[in-house]
């Protein structure tokens, strides 16, 4: 490394530089994330009446069948959404990585394009598409698969469809990053040794893509378990998910302490997944 500085010089300069580089991010993280999250943690342990245990708000959640059902739906849907996104996102990322640039970039653009519109606008599109008398119902009835009155609006299937569209770019981009680092020679070697296309995909590309798939899945899971606009609009009020329930308690019933307790549980669920993953990847890489 002929162009690198001597250790002493690098030490002095790098410190100032690091502070400068990390400053805006750190300020934003502290001001816009750590501080409010801290407030939520404090709110969540304030019991509704003085003298009660600090766990009162949490106990209320676990003792109530209604909230447990909401939590179960949130978790179940997030798992399904993550699986479906991975099943669509992996082949898509592979195609983007291995086709000529123009085709790949066009596909990528089409995947990322929805991110350029507001989530509310996109979701409202789904309301129209999935609703009674909407194009999806029309298609299904043309294909003889259901009445024209049939609707996917206000169903869990509808939530999954709309969420997969919203979250697909996150899975595709993350997986694409890893697949593009897999050298095509590995696949060529596998093919020369007599493995077919699918066998190569299954035994060479897929195992090597696991880090991308895992981080993509974590991202998609964390985003879908905490998502609120799409499940609320497409799923409707009769299929509440946790983020929607929290929003309602914060704005409508004004029960901030209970809302904070639920937010804390949601955060704990996401961290419960992230921390083992970080620990695992650290062991692998260093």
């Amino acid at each position, binding site marked *: 490394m002929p162009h690198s500085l001597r250790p002493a010089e690098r030490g002095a300069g790098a410190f100032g530089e690091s502070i400068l580089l990390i400053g805006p991010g750190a300020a934003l993280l502290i001001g816009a994330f750590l501080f409010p999250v801290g407030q939520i943690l404090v709110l969540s342990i304030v019991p509704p009446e003085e003298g009660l245990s600090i766990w009162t708000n949490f106990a209320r959640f676990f003792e109530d069948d209604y909230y447990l059902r909401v939590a179960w739906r949130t978790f179940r849907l997030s798992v399904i959404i993550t699986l479906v996104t991975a099943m669509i996102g992996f082949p898509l990322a592979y195609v983007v990585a291995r086709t000529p640039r123009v085709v790949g970039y066009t596909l990528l653009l089409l995947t990322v394009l929805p991110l350029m519109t507001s989530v509310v606008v996109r979701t409202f599109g789904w309301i129209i598409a999935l609703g009674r008398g909407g194009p999806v119902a029309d298609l299904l009835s043309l294909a003889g698969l259901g009445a024209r009155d049939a609707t996917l609006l206000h169903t869990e299937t509808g939530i999954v469809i709309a969420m997969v569209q919203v979250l697909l770019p996150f899975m595709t981009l993350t997986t694409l990053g890893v697949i593009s680092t897999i050298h095509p020679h590995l696949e060529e070697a596998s093919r020369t040794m007599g493995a077919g296309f699918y066998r190569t995909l299954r035994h060479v590309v897929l195992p090597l893509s696991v880090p991308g798939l895992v981080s993509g899945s974590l991202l998609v899971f964390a985003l879908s378990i905490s998502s609120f606009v799409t499940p609320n609009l497409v799923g409707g009020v009769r*299929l509440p998910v946790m983020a929607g329930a929290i929003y309602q308690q914060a704005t409508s019933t004004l029960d901030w302490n209970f809302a904070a307790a639920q937010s804390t549980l949601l955060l704990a669920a996401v961290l419960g997944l992230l921390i083992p993953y970080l620990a695992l990847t650290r062991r692998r890489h260093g």
Partner: protein
Amino acid sequence: MTHLSKGALVAVAASLLAGTAMAQETFVINSFGGAYEEAHRRLVIEPFEQMYNVEVEVVTAYSADALAQLRAQAENPQFDVIHFSGGQEVTAAAEGLLAPITPDQLSNYSQLYPFAVEGLEQGQGPVYSVAVLGLLSDGEAAPTSWNDLFSASNGEDVAIADITNTYGLLTLLMLNQVRGGTLDDIQPGLDAVTELLDNGAQILSSSPEFQQAFAQDATSLAAYAQDYAYTLQQAGLPIDFVQPAEGSPGIYITANVVAGRPNEELARAFVDLSISAAVQAGWAEALRYSPTNSTVELPVDLAGQVVYGDEAAANLVRFDPVVVNAQRSDWTDDWNRAIAQ
């Protein structure tokens, strides 16, 4: 390098300070978005800006969100005037978030119907518009009673609003009253809603969802607001509004002065302008909101499309806002449990 990072810190701090300084100079209100906000700008906000040479910043926030924001900002309020359509002024006033207004501070006070200024003593702002809840029909059904919701030929064609929407709360209370319930016991109302859902009815949260449902023929009968029926007609949909025989609850829209802001006098001037006869006539004409100012004069065809005149105004069903606010949270919980699948 260290002096550079200090410089950066100073720059960040300076921009933050500049932000707060600027925020204090503008006059901030909330409005309800869409066509409402457009009319709000034309009728009140822009004339106000010219009269008082002030710049008004409009934050789009429905009543529940607006109250949540107001509470969160209790220490450092960011709104000057706040508008509520769901009775949130009762809570806000009780929590000391609003600055009380006295009759002598409003030049248009004496022109308002008594119901519009009832809340002033409790520290709430005056009612400047009334929206009326009734039945919206696409012409296939010709409803006359709240009970027609239950006898619709196709139960799936019926839509009502969610309880987080003020119209949904009032639908629940009105059905409750029709079924013999009282504000102390809303079980008959909840049973009525469950019956509608068992028939296949949909629950929608927001106004655009109602428009979409009517436009796609997913709904032919809905419990919703008179002004929104007019919005749908303007959008080309053949929607009729019916005030059922049992009566119609009103949605009382208030303009309130926020406590702890530097310019309360200007805020009161804004409220005073909001309740003036000219502005209220404008609301009736633009969006079919019913006036609360007794001196408003409307042409005959327009008068038939709003609740107009002393007698009609007195016939509106009003549920005690104090009880409603005290119970809202429990009712929301009961409602959620009743409707969840």
